[in-house]
């Protein structure tokens, strides 16, 4: 069995650890791809050296994607990292020889041979790890939502630009076929001018089995799991995976599926530039348990010039057949998009839509049928070509996360917020603006 825990390794010194890591990297002959290309750019046929940070759930999807790219000679997986040794061991076993395991992502960032990292940690870690990776010159693929606060998102954009790296946010629909077919149909007015987009999604779960605090399970570094969050004792309802149901670490479905849907909707509506809006949210809070996400939730965003409304609904007005989706309501009818056009095909009307004379075509990377692979291929392309602007560049990911985060903020504050996208502040509401940033526990800071 690979990645066995052994007694002596518990007492390894930092010096020994670094030496062993360096020797292991040297033994498998890893060379950063930039060595083979022009300064600041990878060579056209260079193999990127990558590391996966966070290898539970979606993180393992990324590992398996990277294994396929590795088989195709496009990447070399140099490291895997997780704060839970049990998950880390499983990842090592899957990747096989040559990969170095780490608990602390900062060891990964110290390695000069690594070009790029894929981050799939709980949301409260995304911004800190992305900013630090950018600062060490790594390209980043980070799971959605990009951030948990507006100020984190701004810092991510700044770090990407200052360090000239490509940061792709994992809202894959913009490289998925179903969403692309819907996008070109909507943009070319299949239903006329769209004035409203409504989303439906099932409710957030309630913590039906609350438990008292307890020591963390063997192998989990609880302090590192919390990272930037305020310290508190471990509770078995935080993890694994349950982080999604706490507003501070997961933000509920509006920040999970919502991040997918809002990204796709902004794309279809050609509205990435519409950064100012009002937001008004209501919800039904849980009455027990650790989780605090609202069970039901309704959020209405109003955009101006052009005028349109975006509605998030849990459960909302379910028009399609699947668990979640959205509807574009236009002058001449409506068009449904189930899921976000990734794991489900587009509506047949969109699939068969013929571009009218003079119509507007929409670009999409189409190297792979699997949209998870395709989204990463798009990221590689941005790195390889040196333009550093993948399909869901961090600026777009930040704007999408801003919709999610301000939806939750409006719910928490119980009032309508008017958002100035230019200044990135709530108009006339100092208390709301205070919550656009969250102080982070040292040293897990931006």
């Amino acid at each position, binding site marked *: 069995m*690979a990645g*066995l*825990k052994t007694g002596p*390794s*518990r007492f390894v010194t930092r010096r020994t*650890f670094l030496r062993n890591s360096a020797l*292991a990297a040297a033994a*498998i002959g890893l060379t950063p791809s930039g060595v083979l290309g022009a300064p600041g750019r990878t060579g056209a046929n260079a193999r990127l050296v990558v590391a996966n940070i966070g290898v539970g759930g979606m993180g393992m999807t990324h590992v398996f994607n990277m*294994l396929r790219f*590795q088989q195709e000679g496009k990447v070399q997986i140099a490291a895997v990292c997780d*704060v839970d*040794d049990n998950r*880390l061991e499983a990842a*090592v076993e899957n*990747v*096989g*020889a*040559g*990969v*170095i*395991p*780490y*608990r*602390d992502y*900062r*060891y990964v*960032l110290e390695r000069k041979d690594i070009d790029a990292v894929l981050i799939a940690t709980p949301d409260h870690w995304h911004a*800190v790890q992305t900013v630090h990776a950018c600062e*060490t010159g790594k390209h980043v693929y980070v799971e959605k939502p990009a951030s948990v606060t507006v100020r984190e998102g701004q810092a991510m954009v700044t770090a990407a630009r200052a360090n000239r790296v490509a940061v792709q946010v994992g809202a894959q629909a913009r490289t998925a076929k179903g969403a692309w077919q819907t996008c070109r149909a909507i943009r070319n007015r299949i239903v006329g001018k769209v004035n409203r987009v409504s989303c439906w999604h099932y409710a957030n779960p309630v913590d039906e089995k*609350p438990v008292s605090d307890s020591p963390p399970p063997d*192998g989990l570094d609880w302090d590192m799991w919390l990272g930037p969050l*305020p*310290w*508190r004792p471990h509770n078995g309802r935080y993890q694994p995976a349950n982080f999604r149901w706490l507003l501070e670490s997961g933000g509920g479905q509006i920040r999970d599926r919502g991040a997918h849907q809002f990204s796709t909707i902004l794309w279809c509506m050609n509205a990435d530039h519409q950064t100012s809006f009002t937001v*008004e949210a*209501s919800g*039904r*809070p849980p*009455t*027990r*348990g650790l989780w605090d996400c609202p069970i039901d939730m309704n959020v209405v965003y109003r955009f101006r010039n052009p005028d349109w409304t975006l509605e998030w609904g849990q459960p909302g007005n379910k028009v399609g057949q699947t668990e979640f989706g959205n509807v574009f309501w236009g002058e001449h009818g409506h068009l449904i998009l189930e899921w976000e056009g990734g794991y489900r095909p587009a509506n047949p009307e969109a699939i068969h839509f013929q571009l009218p004379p003079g119509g507007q075509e929409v670009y999409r990377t189409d190297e792979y049928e699997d949209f998870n692979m395709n989204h990463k291929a798009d990221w590689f392309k941005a790195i390889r070509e040196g333009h550093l602007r993948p399909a869901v560049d961090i600026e777009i990911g930040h704007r999408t996360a801003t919709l999610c985060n301000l939806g939750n903020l*409006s*719910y*928490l*504050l*119980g009032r309508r917020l008017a958002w100035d996208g230019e200044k990135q502040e709530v108009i*006339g*509401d100092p*208390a*709301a603006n*205070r*919550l656009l*940033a969250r*102080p*982070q*526990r*040292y*040293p*897990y*800071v931006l």
Partner: protein
Amino acid sequence: MTLPPTGCLHAPSAILMCSDRHRGASRGSTCAELISATGTGLGATLAPASEPVNDLVRRLRSPDEQINGPACQAAVAYGAPAVRPLLALLAEPDFELSRRAKRALYAMVRYAGRPGANNEARDLEIELLGGLSTGTNASRRHVLWLFSEIGSARAVPSISALLSVAELREDARCALMRIPGRRSTRALRAAFAAAPEDFKYALADSLRQRGEKVDGYPSQKRLPTRQTTVTPSLGKAK
């Protein structure tokens, strides 16, 4: 009882109807309806402040979610007079009761933070100060984060005092980071001068974020420290 918000200058029930629109009263019912249904009977005539608050506490203590849930949602309307009883609940060992108190306090703080409610926010802040000197460390930690949302210069001395308490100092630092103005910056500077060496790095980071110059104590944010027990695979590369 709190002052009515703008546009709701009548009975407490009207206050609740206004305030609960976004607070998530279930399925369109207003907080006034919920209170009526659970027998609070605040009604149009305000009872002495203590009795409604005592009743709120009784309902929060109820193990019946049909009673404690609506009570938690309705707490926003009780304002400053309800703070001390809620702080007492926050420190209770029953974790579900403590959570309800925490959620009620957060709802109150966020409601009082709305534009134009400065007096309400001030009254709430003054009452919350008591929560920094009493209760458990866990409850005081929550109070510090409440102050991060509503605290003003008035709260800075009480928060600063906790910068020397090992278990609470990091939360106190974070709370001060969210309080605007020179007073909180001066408090961070004073704490930096007196802090033990291992805490100076965090305080230095806070001061730099506020545009202050600090000699030494470089950022440790990218310094790796945590090591895994998992070893590399000896098998084949895949």
